[in-house]
């Protein structure tokens, strides 16, 4: 069965979906009119970061498809690893449809971990767009391993991963390695994934991952030169919440497949639950756009429809290139379940992660 989220892939199909949405919500949406207004899209990061680029890419299309074609501007509120700006948005933004928030995995992670400095409740926001992203884990070819099924051969060997920090997005590979049973030493303090790739190319790091576009431009040449071997991609989530292969890397197994190739059975257990929660928040639903708590349903609908139309816009499809990659953008009603998966965690899994970080990396979150 073709999931609703898959429908958004083809531009034509998405137009139909958008039209369906429009029919499903007659009347109220027409009352929403932003003409002559300015929409502020809050980004809790500084200029030039991934979320900033993502929002700047979407802004003109959002403006074109919102009723009344308002002016959409990006407002950067950086600091505190995105907690500051999101706290401020939660406390201050008015639910009038003129303030929109765009966050990232680094905003969801402290929320999921129960960081006491977080003053926002993700469940209160109204998601109107969810953008997934992906990444591929790779190792040096010199290990003599051709794919994940042979990973057992290096189970005893200590691998080195150049990490941005235990509670950064690099928590996802950390948990992936833990679930797989790999022996990995994490060296912290990298200032970006590019640093990690450089450490890998120097031979300082012996396992690494890159997000999709960086993998395609910078690691594929290494793979082609016979210097690196891809192990697995993180994959994407379909509408039923199942992990599927990453559309950018149809030939690379996703994490669950890799686990089965290595261990002969599908993964399970509390560590795996924790991995899934942070994988969803960090990759499968990395960047949500949200309206403040208490926004009127017709405004939420207007935004969902505008994003559905924006994603279906042939101009956006032609220009999306590196920014959105091959990923299906969750729009319309599809945003809700995906957003929910990405912003919730089983209490037991949360406690397990907190304990894991405390015992292995001395991270305390209180």
């Amino acid at each position, binding site marked *: 069965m073709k999931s609703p989220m898959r429908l958004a892939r083809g531009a034509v199909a998405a137009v139909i979906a958008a039209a369906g949405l429009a029919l499903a919500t007659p009347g109220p949406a027409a009352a929403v009119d932003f003409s002559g207004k300015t929409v502020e899209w809050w980004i809790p990061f500084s200029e030039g970061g991934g979320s900033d680029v993502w929002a700047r*890419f979407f802004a003109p299309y959002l403006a074109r498809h919102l009723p009344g074609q308002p002016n959409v501007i990006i407002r950067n509120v950086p*600091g505190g*690893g995105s907690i500051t700006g999101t706290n401020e948005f939660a406390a201050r933004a008015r639910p009038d449809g003129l303030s929109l928030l765009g966050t990232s995995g680094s905003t969801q992670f402290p929320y999921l971990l129960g960081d006491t400095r977080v003053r926002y409740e993700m469940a209160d926001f109204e998601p109107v767009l969810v953008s997934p992203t992906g990444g591929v884990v790779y190792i040096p070819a010199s290990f003599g391993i051709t794919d994940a099924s042979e990973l057992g051969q290096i189970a005893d060997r200590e691998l080195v991963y150049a990490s941005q920090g235990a509670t950064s997005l690099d928590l996802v590979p950390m948990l992936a390695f833990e679930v797989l049973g790999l022996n990995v030493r994490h060296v*912290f303090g990298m200032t970006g994934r590019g640093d990690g790739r450089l450490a890998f190319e120097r031979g300082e790091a012996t396992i690494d991952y890159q997000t999709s576009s960086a993998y395609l431009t910078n690691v594929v040449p290494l793979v082609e030169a016979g210097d690196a071997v891809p192990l697995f991609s993180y994959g994407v989530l379909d509408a039923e919440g199942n992990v599927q292969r990453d559309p950018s890397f149809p030939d690379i197994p996703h994490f669950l497949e890799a686990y089965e190739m290595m261990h002969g059975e599908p993964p399970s257990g509390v560590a795996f639950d924790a991995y899934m929660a942070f994988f969803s928040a960090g990759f499968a639903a990395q960047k949500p756009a949200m309206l403040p708590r208490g926004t009127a349903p017709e405004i939420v609908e207007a935004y969902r429809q505008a994003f559905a139309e924006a994603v279906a816009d042939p101009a956006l499809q032609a220009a999306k290139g590196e920014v959105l990659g091959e990923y299906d953008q969750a729009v319309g009603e599809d945003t809700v379940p995906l957003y929910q998966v990405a912003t919730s965690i089983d209490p037991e899994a949360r406690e397990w992660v907190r304990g894991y970080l405390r015992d292995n990396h001395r991270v305390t979150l209180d």
Partner: protein
Amino acid sequence: MVIDALFEALGNVLTLQHFTYLMVGVLVGLVVGILPGLGGIVGMSLLLPFVYGMDATSALAMLIGMLPVLAIADTFASVLMGIPGSSASQATILDGFPMAKKGQAARALSAAFTASLFGGLFGAAVLTVCVLAARPLILSFGAAELFMLTLFGLSMVGVLSGQSLLKGIAACALGLALGAVGAAPATGEYRMDFGTLYLMDGVPLVIVGLALFAVPEIGDLLRKNSTIAERKSSLGTGWLQGIRDTWAYRWLTLRCSGLGAILGMIPGLGGSVVDWIAYGHVVQTSKDRSQFGKGDVRGVIAPESTTSAKEGGGLVPTLLFGIPGSGSMAIFLAGMILIGLQPGPAMVGQNLGVTYTIVWSLAIANVIGTVLCIVLAPNIARITTIRYALVAPFMILVISFAAFQPSRSYLDLVTLLVLGVVGILLRRFGWPRPAFLIGFVLATQGERYLYQALQFSGWSFFGRPIVIVIGLIIILSVWLGARANKGGGSVQTEGSGAISDSTHMWPQVAFTAGVICVFVFTLYETVGLSLLGKVFPIGVALVGLLAALLIIWPQWRGNRASREVFDGEDARRIDDDGPVGPLFYVAWLAAFVGAIGLVGYFLALVAFFVAFLRIVAKSSWGQTLVLTGAAAGLVLLLASALNMVMPSGLLQDHFHNYLIWPLR
């Protein structure tokens, strides 16, 4: 193929459309460069919103066109006003500003511009060639090598310490301790953050630079009832002299350009210390050092050629690996991705044309920028002939506006005020501020790279060939610097040390005691952390504590012949007839920051302008209104171009729902 690509790219650059966008970048760079404190990050942020939807070569021309002009134009503030034009041009102040005071502003500026032009073109040439072959070089610099480069930077403290090496070490340790605020690189533990989100990422560099150099300088100039230029003529003559100076020191210019290109090319050191390394280098390698810090033109040429060459070098890792060497490069990368270019190996393969478009844009913008700066210089220099009481509020406006760029927070302004007072005291008691700044900038990198090097390769990293080479360079550099103490003495960064005849010894004793308290606090705050999180701050605190104790001893004993005894107020001050004394100056700043906390930045600024101009400058109402209006207009223009909400106050928060921008 390379030559073809090179000339094809030149053809692209010289089309009218491309050239138009290049000029847009150049003009933005010029304005941002002239305004003190604002640097590449602000310039790039201003341009980024326009990138979207532009074709690739035009967008690149616009973004790249800004960079070299900014590096040239930021010299104005450094030379003419003694305020860092951006965080890359701090070292230029040491000799450039004394030259301006002596009536040699024209000579200093033209030497700076020619050195910049040469450095910039050199950087572009390096980029052309090195982008093809730099991959192995960049890959050979791992964490261990970067740590050694950090040590190299720290070794410059030796020559920048002025009369007291102990004070240099203690000031550097103070900077390192301040740099340790925030998350520890190795463990992510928060240190000395007082539980606030604001300090989680550490103190922003822009604020430290402005607090150390701009805040004290404005206060100092306000003490005199005069203009900046002590002679009648604003610029003086010497345009040709400046060019001849650069020519006379052509080998120095070349050496420093090479240094800048290489340091720019190695990602991880960051752009904000290369000017100090260049300055340290020129001092070390000069025979006659008596004039450094008092207006030696070599002290202008060296940092200016280095910082301009750095831009071209810095693009090499940005394009080859997609790794930004600085904050402005990070935004440039975002711009590239928005126009559909992902940096990587393809930039020297199928996208070589794009790379060379960047090279040409860089070179052409360099030339245009230099010409524009020379044309504008006489007009801009008139600011030094205006009564300083009229200039000061504008300076305070620009530095406060620049200060809240990093996190757009009210706390940015509080930090500026607190560190500004520290800067005033450091200056008064002869603690070298360059040493403090170098320590601050290199704190995070030093700790991070040492930890990473140990994690990656253990203590054996000391045996790596490049590590040994850099180690030898450090020894050579320290030796060259140490020669100074026998001969002409090292640079006078903070007043000269004649035998102190101050009537009161207690102010310096109190300040040194305060410094000791900071180190004790650092120990107290970090001793409970995990080993990897505390080893660096504790080491820094112990070194600083030892140095500070050795400083306070002669001060306590009242040994006036000691090198450690110095109080800038001693020689105060026959010409101390200005409108605002130091205490009142700090009170003005505190009132301004307090008012912002109450009514927000915009209203507080208007009130500050009116009050300052009426009370201090004794302006007429007409003049007051015109100047205040100009200030308000400038702030609104910048803030709306950057889409930003200015720091808000308590009353504003209370009435938030009833207010409209810019009041809210």
